[in-house]
């Protein structure tokens, strides 16, 4: 077996395990936790397209989640339009907003860009919290919107059990990871990396850095909004605090930083580590001190940044490669025992 084949087999095995989990885990509570885990992995992978490859640190992605969630929910509640269609509409709306945010802010460097995106996201939250009706659309201010659990079925992206949600979010995650993989090997991926690392050098090599970042932002905001719709249909209740809050934006950035910004599976690794920490600290320590999970997050983040500044992806990738090498070596030794 070649190295490449071995990698493919191990990837397929990982995918099969993830897809097979609901067969063994039937408890709705655990499935709920797992759905949210993969939901965050999806969000962070989408964020990574711009936050990882383009070398900027957007901290306002909750805006796009909110746009996705509110668009599909309003279309469904007021006009009876399937959330699947609302999802796409929300995606395009978020793309427009993302590009509009990107146009002025991509000129800012480092922390200033991060601050600008925070300011924008907070402005959006405050506006939504104080708006009951936006034209004909009912936002319902801070009380949020509730989706009645009626007319369940695939067409309405509404289910009585957790399993369908699980499969949908996992397939979305696989899709976005595949897309990230393709982008990272494309001209756009090379240009984003180059522009993120040394913009002047990249420009001299023919890279229109600002345009590449906008393209990444457009993709990222589109994909992020899709997750918003999913979240609305999964929890059946959205309100500005839950879906446009900075906590959400920060958590995405935390997961990315810990997993490994700019790597393909880093966001998934980060979510696998941090989500259980977050959920269990909330369950068991939530009564002790509200927000304790964020403190724990912070401590983990500091530790990872001290010992693995480029995220957990790097040591794990090394381990993975080492394992694959070991397997290959063992095989070749077995095939040619006389060579010693």
């Amino acid at each position, binding site marked *: 077996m070649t190295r490449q084949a071995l990698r493919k087999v191990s990837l397929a095995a990982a995918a099969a395990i993830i897809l097979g989990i609901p067969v063994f885990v039937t408890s709705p509570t655990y499935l709920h936790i797992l759905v949210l885990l993969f939901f965050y992995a999806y969000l962070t992978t989408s964020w990574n397209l711009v936050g990882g490859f383009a070398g900027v640190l957007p901290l306002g992605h909750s805006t796009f989640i909110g746009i996705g969630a509110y668009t599909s929910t309003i279309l469904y509640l007021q006009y009876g339009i399937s959330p699947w269609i609302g999802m796409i509409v929300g995606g395009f709306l978020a793309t427009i907003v993302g590009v509009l945010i990107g146009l002025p802010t991509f000129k800012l460097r480092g922390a200033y860009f991060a601050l600008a995106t925070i300011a924008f996201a907070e402005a959006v939250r405050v506006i939504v919290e104080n708006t009951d009706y936006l034209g004909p659309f009912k936002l319902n201010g801070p009380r949020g919107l509730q989706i009645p659990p009626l007319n369940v079925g695939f067409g309405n992206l509404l289910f009585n059990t957790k399993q369908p949600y699980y499969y949908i979010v996992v397939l979305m995650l696989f899709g976005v990871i595949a897309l990230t993989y393709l982008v990272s*090997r*494309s*001209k756009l991926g*090379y*240009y984003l*990396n*180059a522009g993120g*690392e*040394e913009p*002047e*050098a*990249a*420009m*001299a*090599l*023919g*890279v*229109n850095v600002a345009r590449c970042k906008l393209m990444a932002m457009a993709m990222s905001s589109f994909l992020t909004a899709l997750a918003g719709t999913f979240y609305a249909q999964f929890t059946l209740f959205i309100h500005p605090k839950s879906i446009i809050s900075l906590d959400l934006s920060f958590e995405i950035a935390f997961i990315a930083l810990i997993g490994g910004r700019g790597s393909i599976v880093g966001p998934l690794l980060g979510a696998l580590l941090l989500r259980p920490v977050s959920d269990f600290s909330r369950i068991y320590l939530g009564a002790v001190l509200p927000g304790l999970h964020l403190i724990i997050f912070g401590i983990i983040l500091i530790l990872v940044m001290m010992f693995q500044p480029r995220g957990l992806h790097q040591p794990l990738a090394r381990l993975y490669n080492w394992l694959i090498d070991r397997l290959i070596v063992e095989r070749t030794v077995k095939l040619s025992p006389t060579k010693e």
Partner: protein
Amino acid sequence: MRILEAKRLSMRFGGLLAVDQLDLQIDEGQIFGLIGPNGAGKTTAFNCIAGVYQATSGEIFLHGESTSGQRPWDLCRKGLARTFQVVKPFATKTVLYNVAVGGFARTSVRARAEEKALEVLESLHLAEKKDALAGNLTIGERKRLEIARALATEPRLLLLDEVMAGLRPTEVDEMVRILKRLRDGGITIFLIEHIMRAVMSLSDRIVVIQYGKKIAEGTPREIASDENVIKAYLGEEYGAA
């Protein structure tokens, strides 16, 4: 054939006139040297030509076409490439990746960009380093990587900003050989350089600037005996001697 022409090029930063009414004519196939004391405005002139700065006044023509309003990436597509005095490798990426970024200027297919990158790396004796991280290279290798990236964009005109600074004498000799080979391959080279031995042996023509103004132009032999140049480099009293 004239490849680059600057007419009364000036660049002002607030109260500082960094480049003052500079005229340049560079013919295709030449190696053209730009020298001058520190702070003379050489790199600023480069940055105007490469589209990093928009000149305060004056005009630049590439292949007879005005470049005003064009940004660095536009000019790169038109066959102008440059290196940076302070090297700017994509440090966390491999050497091959670095050069492939340049290769993408002429193709959208990764395999072709990498093929071009490998070809350039071979010609600059960097091929065996292709999988090394650019951040781990020696300074000599980094300077060659800068050139490799620029070459991968398939330029007609190559602006080199002090590619020999910090190199050991043997490395300078190698660089001189490389540049001569590039010129023979049809690339026009415009270089800023402080290592006189190299500039004098390489250049077909040299322009000397001081305080942003051209003070001399000619063949290396003419420049070496020019009184203004000697004064600029060694001070007034030497000029009188």
